[in-house]
């Protein structure tokens, strides 16, 4: 077990926005330099690099541009929004086992501009690349939002969840973003009426059930717990991490299995809590992957904050807000701060543990960070 053997000691980010002038590579380098400065570690010391398979630029390009030295460990995790905690967890294992001493993880993306703005709009070869899309795209189930809407529609039918529940998620996170100067939506308030009257994207999901489109990059620095005590910042320990997907899982088109509403989160959660002294009831604040609002109730169930079918009701009474039972996505998350495949959820978790978040949960000492439900996923438990 790697419990508490490593810590995140540096975080860095760029501006978040649309049509940022820098390239993805430049944004990545900026985020990494900022994270190293935050940690007080010279770039010459970096010897481990962890990233997403969907990162447009390789470790080699990053290292050549940043003038890094010899790299002794590098690894990538797949599945887009399923990757984040796995990227950090793999890096933590590498540091804990001595494969590298100073590890950097990053994600850079120009989703709001450029050629890869909407990956789903690719035609032609995609069905050949993926066996399951051959049985969805010909019927007009084309975008990630259509795939999640099919799960949401069933979830609402089965458990009596309503659009009001999904609005609870969108509104709570917008409120956080309105108090976060880094958030893309800092100046855009949202009322319940705004939510209810916004245009449909894939009924029952509307515009505000969808995450933002963002250009931006983030990075973290991971070192051993021993080294962490000498760094500039309060160490944030990686207490536990896990990955998971279930039998007959199909990434995004997760219909071809026994129980689509009992997704990869349940598998990751089981492994996570098995290694952790901190259980669901001990979590002070959570950063839950939110490409779409329905992922919040599903993940609340998966990670054991309530029973199955109760995730929607859990969003009531301001439970997700400051002072609620479980403040969730306190930066505004993917819905209202920035959508960078969930990496801003990791850095927000670190800020909460340091006590420096814009929407600080008082005395927060434990934080759950999750990757996406509906894809091969992962999760971290961070602690002060």
């Amino acid at each position, binding site marked *: 077990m790697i419990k508490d053997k490593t810590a995140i000691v540096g975080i860095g980010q760029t501006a978040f926005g649309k049509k940022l002038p820098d390239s993805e590579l430049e944004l990545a380098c900026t985020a990494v330099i900022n994270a190293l400065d935050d940690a007080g570690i010279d770039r010459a010391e970096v010897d481990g690099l962890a990233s997403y398979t969907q990162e447009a630029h390789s470790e080699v390009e990053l290292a050549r541009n940043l003038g890094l030295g010899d790299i002794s460990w590098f690894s990538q995790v797949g599945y887009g929004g399923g990757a984040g905690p796995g990227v950090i967890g793999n890096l933590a294992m590498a540091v804990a086992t001595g494969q590298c001493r100073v590890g950097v993880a990053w994600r850079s993306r120009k989703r709001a501009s450029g050629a890869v703005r909407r990956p*789903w709009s690719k*035609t032609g070869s995609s069905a050949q690349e993926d*066996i399951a899309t051959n049985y969805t*795209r010909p*019927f007009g189930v084309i975008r990630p939002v259509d795939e999640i809407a*099919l799960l949401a529609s069933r979830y609402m039918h089965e458990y009596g969840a309503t659009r009001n529940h999904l609005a609870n998620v969108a509104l709570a996170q917008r409120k956080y973003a309105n108090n976060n100067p880094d958030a893309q939506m800092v100046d855009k308030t949202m009322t319940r009426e705004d939510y209810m009257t916004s245009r449909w994207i894939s009924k029952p999901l509307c515009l505000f059930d969808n995450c933002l489109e963002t250009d931006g990059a983030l990075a973290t620095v991971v070192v051993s717990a021993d080294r962490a005590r000498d760094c500039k910042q309060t160490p944030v320990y990686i207490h536990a991490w896990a990955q998971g997907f279930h039998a007959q899982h199909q990434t995004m*088109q997760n219909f071809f299995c026994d129980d689509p509403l009992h997704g990869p989160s349940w598998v990751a959660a089981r492994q996570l809590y098995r290694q952790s002294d901190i259980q669901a009831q001990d979590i002070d604040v959570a950063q839950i992957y939110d490409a779409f609002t329905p992922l919040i109730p599903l993940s609340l169930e998966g990670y054991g904050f309530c029973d199955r079918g109760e995730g929607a009701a859990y969003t009531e009474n301001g439970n997700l807000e400051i002072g609620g039972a479980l403040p969730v996505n306190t930066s505004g998350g993917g819905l209202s701060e920035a959508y960078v495949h969930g990496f801003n959820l990791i850095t927000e978790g670190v800020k909460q543990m340091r006590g420096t978040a814009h929407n600080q949960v008082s005395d927060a000492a434990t934080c759950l960070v999750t990757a996406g439900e509906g894809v091969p996923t992962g999760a971290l438990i961070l602690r002060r």
Partner: protein
Amino acid sequence: MTDSALLPFIDDTNRPFWRGCQGGILRMQQCPKTSRLIFPPRPVNPWSPRDKSIWTEVSGRGTIWSVIEPHPPLILNFTKLAPYNAIVVTLEEDPSIRLIGNLVPAEGAQINEIAYEDIVIGTPVQAIFETINDEITLPRWVLVRQ
């Protein structure tokens, strides 16, 4: 009505499924040992990997498990058809087998003729087939007449 760019890719593994559709029948892979159905088609039988799967005809009867109504931004002809419906159907023989499709009022009808509000999860449906071109016939779904 469906762009060739989004039509299914036919290969040696899935050809019997799409040929079946051309002949007006729904076919699934099946494990010869356990009789469990397999969908989507794949080269190796997950229920008994040393035993090659066989192809079997299924009833084409099922139940609506979920429904959505996609709106723009979409791509290609789906933009012109929007809003249309898309449904998930669980198969009568094995409710863990699910197919994605569209509910239509009758053969030859468009996928945007039945409104989302008129589609009830749990309703029984039956597969019908729409010829798209020489290669491709897609399954569609109609309500079972009571």
